[in-house]
């Protein structure tokens, strides 16, 4: 079995996780910029983080033969401070030419506030001006449906954005159709307690098809499972799905989306 982990926060994982992922068939890992669990006090903190994502973490993964790529942004959880957000967004272009940067992400909304929306629009504009792929985070729990609708409106309102170059992540049963019908890719995040379980993800694959869909672990410092994607593949197999279909969902699909960035290469 081979797979691509399209969304994992490896800076918060131990090295053993890299070993387990490679041993399970992981051919590439992609790491969106995210919230550190605390608010950074200054733009310089993001500069260091972007260096970690583009310099140090690829080296750590390379020790195990695993290609590591990243996405850059300021997370919506830090979007209430517009001054900080604007300073960080202004800093991002100097990193965009680095060899493992895939695009702008994970941008989006958290509590669906006005400033979060403004920062989302700034990120979308940044992506459009620099012709970057976009990875969108959708809000948690009760905020997801509204946040997904607001996000789709922002993307729809910017005529420079090509829907097929945007992946909207963390979809669930009440948001997946909205995302696919808008022409975007949909990411299903496999978490033990929130977002989506493997069984529900496979339910959605059976209902909505395998086009423009991927699965990811989004493993970070919270309750999460770095091997969630291969475990979901086992769930597909348990139900009788064939190797070809499983390969499409966990390898070919992320490969197709991510290869829109010429820098992306699976191992």
């Amino acid at each position, binding site marked *: 079995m081979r797979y691509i982990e399209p969304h994992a926060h490896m800076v918060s994982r131990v090295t053993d996780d890299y070993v387990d992922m490679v041993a399970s068939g992981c051919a590439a890992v992609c790491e969106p910029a995210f919230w550190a669990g605390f608010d950074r006090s200054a733009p310089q903190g993001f500069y260091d983080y972007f260096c970690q994502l583009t310099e140090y973490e690829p080296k750590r993964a390379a020790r195990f033969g695993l290609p590591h790529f990243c996405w850059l942004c300021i997370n919506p959880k830090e979007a209430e401070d517009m001054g900080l957000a604007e300073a960080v967004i202004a800093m991002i272009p100097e990193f965009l030419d680095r060899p493992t940067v895939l695009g702008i992400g994970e941008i989006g909304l958290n*509590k*669906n506030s*006005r400033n979060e929306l403004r920062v989302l629009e700034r990120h979308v504009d940044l992506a459009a001006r620099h012709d970057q792929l976009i990875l969108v985070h959708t809000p948690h729990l009760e905020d997801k449906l509204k946040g997904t609708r607001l996000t789709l409106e922002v993307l729809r309102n910017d005529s420079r954005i090509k829907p097929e170059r945007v992946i909207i992540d963390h979809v669930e049963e009440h948001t997946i159709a909205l995302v696919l019908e808008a022409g975007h890719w949909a990411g299903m995040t496999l978490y033990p307690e929130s977002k989506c379980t493997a069984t529900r993800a496979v339910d959605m694959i059976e209902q909505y098809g*395998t086009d423009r869909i991927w699965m990811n672990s989004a493993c970070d410092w919270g309750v999460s499972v770095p091997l969630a994607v291969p475990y979901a593949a086992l769930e597909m197999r348990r139900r009788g799905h064939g190797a070809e279909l499983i390969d499409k969902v966990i390898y070919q699909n992320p490969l197709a989306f991510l290869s829109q960035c010429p820098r992306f290469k699976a191992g």
Partner: protein
Amino acid sequence: MPSNKQELMTRQRVLDLYFIDARHRLIEIAAFLDRVERAEGAADFRLTVFRQAMRELDREGAERAKRVLVAFSDPTAAPIPAATTKAACGAWPEVRS
């Protein structure tokens, strides 16, 4: 919407694979409600929304997961003035009538 629906599993097969797990989860929910009832003090909107969401389980149609998620969701459309917290609590506080 394209569908990948395949005749992979009969209802019997679904029951064979998932009945014990679903039974376990249902008992956990029952025990949770018992625990809430045995406890002292007032509950809050989360319990009210939870009970509303449970009603979706008994309704016809194969969109129960979607309807339960919608039952917990903020139905409004306008952005809020400012975020006062980073966390979500799992249920929208304004209980629907």
